[in-house]
């Protein structure tokens, strides 16, 4: 485990460097003068000149990247034009709610997907399997932003069981035990909108993996030794399936983070996704850059965690 951990941590460095390079590169796709694009048409010539030096626009591309990267490592992501405050501060403030939403959604989706996939595999080619397969296909095909709206319509507007929005208020007031319950109430619909879709993908792949595993030699050998069926399924079956599914779940974190952009917009969730949409609308490029960088880094870390978990489940995996 130790050697694997070190190797895998070392591998983070080039990946994170690559991610930063892409984020920087994409932002230089901006047509025309970046300083003008950032500050907008009403900026004073003095401010424009100042920003040009700040961004190192008179230098070559690699030098500018170096300057920017140095700033990033120092915790300086620039200053948001629309919010008139440091980008890092604004981004970190919004990170918490997004992490809460995304991790809840991923957890729910994983549970749903694993259970559905295992059940379908155990009832392979029977009615249950067909129903699950169709449900899973529906999950994959459903637009999460539409599902969010439908859930609001049914559970908030028609039934009146759950709140539509108002998380911003709850989040800033969160202090007592009561507010935990309140957060949970606000969390249910948005996380469900994401979880049903993520669960679709996870369920579909779990079904395939479980069908393979249940027909595999180690499972058959456990049965040949007379190991009770429940133990064969829960120990041998589930462990193999989990080991295969953990990387897939890590990849689904990417979907959940992306989907959070829609869902936060729909549910007025005070997270990073909504901040990004607002920043794009306001042409606040440095804020977009900072937000994307932080979310991408978070995704890289989630996948690191997934790889470590997989290694813990299956010691044969190597850091490639």
């Amino acid at each position, binding site marked *: 485990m130790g050697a694997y951990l070190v190797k895998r941590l070392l591998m983070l460095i080039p990946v994170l460097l690559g991610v930063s390079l892409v984020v920087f590169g*994409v932002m230089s796709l901006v047509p025309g003068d970046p300083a003008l694009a950032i500050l907008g048409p009403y900026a004073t010539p003095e401010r424009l000149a100042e920003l040009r030096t700040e961004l190192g626009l008179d230098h070559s591309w690699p030098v500018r990247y170096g300057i920017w990267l140095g700033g990033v490592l120092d915790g300086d992501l620039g200053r948001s034009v629309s919010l008139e405050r440091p980008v890092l501060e604004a981004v970190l403030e919004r990170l918490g709610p997004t992490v809460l939403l995304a991790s809840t959604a991923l957890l729910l989706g994983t549970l749903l997907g694993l259970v559905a996939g295992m059940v379908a595999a155990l009832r392979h080619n029977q009615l249950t399997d067909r129903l699950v397969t169709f449900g899973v296909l529906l999950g994959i095909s*459903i637009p999460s932003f539409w599902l969010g*709206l439908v859930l609001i319509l049914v559970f908030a507007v028609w039934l009146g069981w759950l709140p539509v929005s108002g998380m911003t208020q709850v989040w800033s007031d969160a202090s007592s035990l009561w507010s935990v319950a309140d957060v949970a109430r606000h969390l249910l619909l948005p996380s469900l909108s994401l979880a049903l879709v993520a669960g679709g993908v996870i369920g579909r792949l779990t079904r395939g993996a479980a069908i393979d595993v249940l027909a595999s030699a180690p499972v058959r*050998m456990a049965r040949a030794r007379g190991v009770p069926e429940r133990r064969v399924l829960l120990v041998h079956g589930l462990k193999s399936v989990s080991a295969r599914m953990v990387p897939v779940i890590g990849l689904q974190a990417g979907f959940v983070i992306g989907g959070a952009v829609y869902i936060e917009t729909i549910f007025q969730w005070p997270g990073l996704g909504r901040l990004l949409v607002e920043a794009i609308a306001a042409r606040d490029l440095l804020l977009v850059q900072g937000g994307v960088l932080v979310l991408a880094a978070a995704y890289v870390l989630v996948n690191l965690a997934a790889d470590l978990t997989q290694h813990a489940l299956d010691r044969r995996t190597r850091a490639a």
Partner: protein
Amino acid sequence: MTTLGARLLRQPGAMVGLGLLGLVVVPALAAPWLPLADPTLTMPAQRMLPVGSTGHPLGTDALGRDLLARLIWGARSSITVGVVATLVAALIGSLIGILAGFFGRVTDALLMRGVDVLMAFPYLLLALAIVAALGPGLGNAMLAIAAANVPFFARAVRGAVLGIRHQDYIDAARLAGHREWWIVIVEVLPNLIPTVLLLMTTTLGWMVLETAGLSFLGLGAQPPDADLGAMLGTGREFLTTYPRVAVLPGFVILILVVGINLFGDALRDLLDPRLRDRGRRLGPRRDDRRRDDRHTREEEHRRGGHHRRDAFEEERGDERHQGEQNADRTETDATEPANDSASATGSRPPLIAAKGLSVLVPSEGGAAAAVDRLDLQLRAGERVGMVGESGSGKSLTALALLGFAPPGGRLEGRVELDGVDLLPVDADALRDLRGRRIAYIPQAPSDALDPLLRVGYQLREAIQAHTSETSVNTGSGVGEERAAERASTQEGSGGRSEADPVQKAAVMVGLGDSRRNQSGADTSKRIETLLKKVGLDGVADIQRRFPHELSGGQSQRVAIAMALAHEPDLLIADEATTALDVTVQAEILALLERLSRGRDRSLLFVSHDLALVAGLCDRVLVLYAGRVVEDAPRERLLEKPAHPYTAALLACSPELGRPDKPLPAIPGQPPSPAESTWGAVAAGCRFAPRCPKAQPVCEQGEPALDELASGHRVRCLFPENDDARAEESR
């Protein structure tokens, strides 16, 4: 292509998918010619007209625009953008994949590292960043989504190219002096088309969803253009008051994407052979087997292909008829020598006997018999070898003795342990018997052990499978044990008196629950004894390891230790030495010999190596294409093999000290289960097409398994070393 189309049309998923697609795509394509209102014409006076208004079947939106027209034109926009984005991503991604895969080395390393980094992004985020930089707009949104999906195509196409690159015809083209670009265009590209098409159908749904999502956020299609995503985004404002304005566009997207995905799945099932088998059913669960048999038969009939299958059924019916007569005859044939030797050893019934055992496997034309009406007997203490080429059905037979059917297949006939048929008993009785009375050692050491669990855990599990510690998992072990004891002493009048006769009989022969009490310390001691018995030192160390940390020989010793855990009456070693190095092979053989000699334990040793089998076993069965072709005592088989196939097998095994001995290969291939069930060789002797002595008569009827000498049976009209018979037939 026509056959592919025809096969697609037979898939219900494909049909439903096409139907749903048509529902959305046909009106969208026909939009310019349909009598629709102008989708962008605003009429503030006619704002939010309800469904069914004159001239507006689905009503109007907040600006008085006709909703139906906007839905149809919006679908047109969403489909166009999704398709174009897919094409762009496929084109660029394939180009990168081809370059990386075909030219390899530096190009590959550079391109693929780039792809890896792009894949380290949540792709919607990448698309958002690109739109943020380029500015909102439908074209930019499409480009952004396409760009975010390029890595996916690049990686998959590179994989496909790597597969193609090492094909012989590429080397041939190179040797012929063609330039690299010529090879790429003429040899590689055409072979990539199916892969890329498949990837496109599977990603199209995503692309439609993602571009709609960007429009929903206001970053794609701009007002007043009709686009499903944008309609959903603007309709959101009126969700509580006029839900249809937002819900309908989303519903159209859902229908469209479900259609695409259903169709794509069906296409993938047909095109991707690796995934195709996954759709086939697993072995039916034991208790469902009878019902399933009927079910699959009905299904087979319903699915059509009547001509071939009906012929098959009839033929098999006839065969069965003959088979029954044959069985009667062969049974007397078979029991006679058994009785002879039984009287010598003290008149005991066979420990295990297969009677008319068939293993049916799925094939293109229906269920084919990979093992066909096989008879086999093992007396207590007897060591029998089973030889044959791969595909002869020897491993399937070995597994069938434990009641295992192959994935998607089923068993027919009887497998009797102490005279009781195992195949109809329930899953729990069968479980109790596996590992306790019959133990199995598989071919590859990697098959024997679960790679994810420590060796010690698996040893413990194997022991506890039949001791009361498993009560944690299976309920009250002690209680069941008592019930079983009562049942067996009072012949079923105790705890299991209500059980059906089969179960009662099962309990009587010791199939019922009879787990012994064993404490954790006992288990540890038992593990230690077992590991020592199979010649493993460092007991604690071995237990701490994972299977991949053991050598092949060590793994196989552990597997044998597990098999011995409950002192089974029958040990089945299925090619147990094949995957090992030669020296280790010899050690394991010696171990198996030691463990089976001088006890009442029977050994069924399955191998393709006749010499190996002959060295270990008292009697040898030779299998060919699912049939026993020869059954003889060891010495007799080695000295006077009767079946031409056996003779050929002996001729092609190398001999020590005779390096100059020619090793003739047997020409041709053994028939597949389908071929021998209803194909080319179904009518006659299955070996006839490869047999040097074959006569026309050999193809007219399958020879019976006739007794040649005492205890020596052969399925051949012209056996070797049988001058009298050969003379007579001339």
